């Protein structure tokens, strides 16, 4: 039986997040105390590097290395930023950590300040997370009162304080350079890297940006040792990952599993299988930047590298499960719709290219696509990936490419046979009355919102395909199963 191990979520659901005593009773702030009194910044960075902890916000960059780079840059002021923008649709891992264990993030940011030489921390959080903000504020107040945050922490002479900044409400603001501009009061647009924030970030000063979940792992690694952490996971991906299970799965929820757990274990053992006993079709990881994993990936150990090899990515941890009723072309269109909305518009491949991808997908789902359109999708996707400025554009075609790669048959059906096997793409469907079954009760005609159904009482009814908007109301109403989808 696959087991969950909770490291980042260790205190979530266990402690009262508004009581610092609860956090302290579970070794809270011990890591900070140990670091400040017994370890040099270099030693802490070394522990982190050896632990193998990688960024949980999407990219998977080694955390220890990032801390070291920020430390080595000379500057009179440096900053620590916690990225709590969490914009992936369906993702709520970071929110749960902030709401359930806010002190863990504060403690880790303070440790980061000690290591990098920063005295100021900023939490960039979505304005849609009011409860998380409230709990963070309560936590900050408590830790200041106890001398665990602010000036002269634990009387060691080390000063570090944290402020909260509200997100601008755009997905792209989760990208670290856009996030920094947004905090500076500029438009939340990305800029070219390098320079990386670690070298030149907030107010042009070295800025260490890490994700909420990345930070939440740090105190445990210090307390339990890097050997312990590195013993969990796969060769290149250590520790655990929190996933938000959503979609057609029985146990929708938050899980934390060791890296290397297979998709099958997550879906069938922990997630309780597919709703209604239906058949698994695909799982989207990495949100709008990721791709889909299919049946052939069910036994692949999930880690950073295997997901990339499978044409997807870890992303922040959204895991959306799809079954036989989901149309993969429509799924690709859904994600592209999101990207088109969220593209900041700064560079043309992403601003215009994604719109064109969306239009092509729309054309195909409406039954007007051609085989050429599929080639166009492929080529345009590659161009957008190669030429976009930031991670949003560089990854936005992934859902298109991965659905084409894994479900080319469904694309062909839409284009050649004008058929959507999952019965999702409505334009291609026809609601029809089966004459043998219809008794002429008139129920459907009376319920059709656009009066597309005609027929006398006790006569077979007829649906006018020109007028029909494919709402399905007639099929729902008919007591004789006389209406079918063609």
């Amino acid at each position: 039986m696959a087991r969950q191990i909770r490291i980042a979520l260790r205190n979530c659901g266990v402690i009262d997040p508004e009581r610092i005593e609860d956090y302290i009773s579970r070794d809270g702030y011990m890591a900070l105390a140990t670091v400040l009194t017994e370890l040099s910044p270099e030693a802490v960075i070394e522990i982190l590097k050896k632990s193998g902890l990688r960024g949980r916000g999407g990219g998977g960059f080694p955390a220890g290395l990032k801390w070291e780079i920020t430390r080595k840059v000379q500057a009179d002021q440096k900053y620590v930023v916690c990225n709590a923008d969490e914009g992936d649709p369906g993702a709520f891992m970071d929110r749960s950590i902030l709401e359930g264990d806010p002190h863990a993030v504060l403690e880790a940011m303070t440790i980061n300040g000690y290591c990098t030489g920063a005295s100021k921390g900023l939490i960039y959080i979505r304005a849609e997370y009011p409860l998380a903000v409230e709990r963070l504020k309560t936590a900050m107040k408590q830790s200041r009162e106890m001398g665990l945050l602010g000036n002269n922490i634990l009387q060691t002479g080390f000063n570090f304080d944290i402020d909260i900044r509200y997100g601008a409400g755009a997905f792209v603001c989760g990208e670290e350079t856009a996030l920094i501009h947004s905090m500076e009061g500029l438009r939340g647009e990305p800029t070219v890297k390098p320079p990386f924030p670690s070298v030149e970030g907030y107010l042009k000063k070295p800025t260490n940006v890490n994700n909420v979940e990345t930070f939440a792992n740090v105190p445990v690694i210090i307390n339990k040792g890097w050997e312990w952490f590195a013993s969990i996971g796969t060769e290149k991906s250590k520790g655990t990952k929190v996933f938000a299970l959503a979609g057609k799965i029985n146990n929708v929820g938050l899980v934390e599993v060791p890296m290397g757990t297979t998709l099958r274990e997550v879906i069938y053992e922990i997630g309780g299988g597919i709703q209604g006993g239906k058949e698994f079709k695909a799982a989207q990881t990495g949100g709008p930047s990721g791709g889909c994993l299919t049946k052939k990936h069910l036994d692949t150990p999930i880690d950073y590298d295997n997901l990339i090899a499978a044409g997807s990515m870890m992303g922040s941890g959204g895991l959306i499960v799809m079954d036989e009723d989901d149309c993969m072309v429509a799924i690709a269109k859904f994600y592209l719709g999101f990207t088109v909305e969220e593209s900041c518009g700064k560079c043309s491949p992403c601003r215009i290219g994604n719109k064109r991808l969306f239009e092509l997908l729309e054309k195909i789902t409406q039954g007007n696509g051609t085989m050429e359109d599929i080639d166009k999708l492929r080529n345009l996707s590659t161009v957008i990936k190669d030429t976009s400025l930031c991670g949003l554009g560089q990854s936005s075609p992934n859902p298109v490419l991965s659905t084409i790669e894994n479900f080319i048959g469904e694309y062909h059906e839409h284009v050649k046979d004008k058929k959507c096997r999952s019965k999702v793409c409505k334009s291609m469907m026809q609601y029809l009355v089966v004459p043998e079954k219809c008794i002429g009760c008139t129920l459907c005609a009376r319920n059709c919102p656009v009066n597309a159904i005609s027929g006398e009482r006790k006569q077979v009814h007829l649906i006018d395909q020109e007028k029909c908007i494919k709402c399905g109301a007639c099929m729902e109403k008919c007591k004789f199963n006389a209406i079918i989808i063609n």
Partner: protein
Amino acid sequence: MAILESIKSLTELREKLKAKQAALSQKDNPQSTIQVKVTMATCGIASGSRPVYDFMKEELSKRNIPALVSQVGCMGFCYAEPTIEVTMPGKSPVIFGFVNTKKADEIIERFIRKGEVIDGVIPMNYETA
């Protein structure tokens, strides 16, 4: 809370709090009590955990059952929110899903008071670091 002046004072405080916490769940300890944790993250609150929290707090005291009712973050069982965890002294914690005030009443009367096995229990499927 007083300012902590060193790692030593933090460690002492931790030991004190740990001992207090441990005593809560020890069967024959005079300090022990029934612990009820209600998930109060955004998702839990949205599905109705606040009335359950209030109910537990008020009713347990009205019915003269000494207990410590507290709010906690997300336990991860979104599909079964609101969820609550009940720990009887000397026993392992038990998590209940889909709890409304009616279910809460049943938990108080049958599970807490009489120690009966009732349905709605969610299997604990993780270990914590």
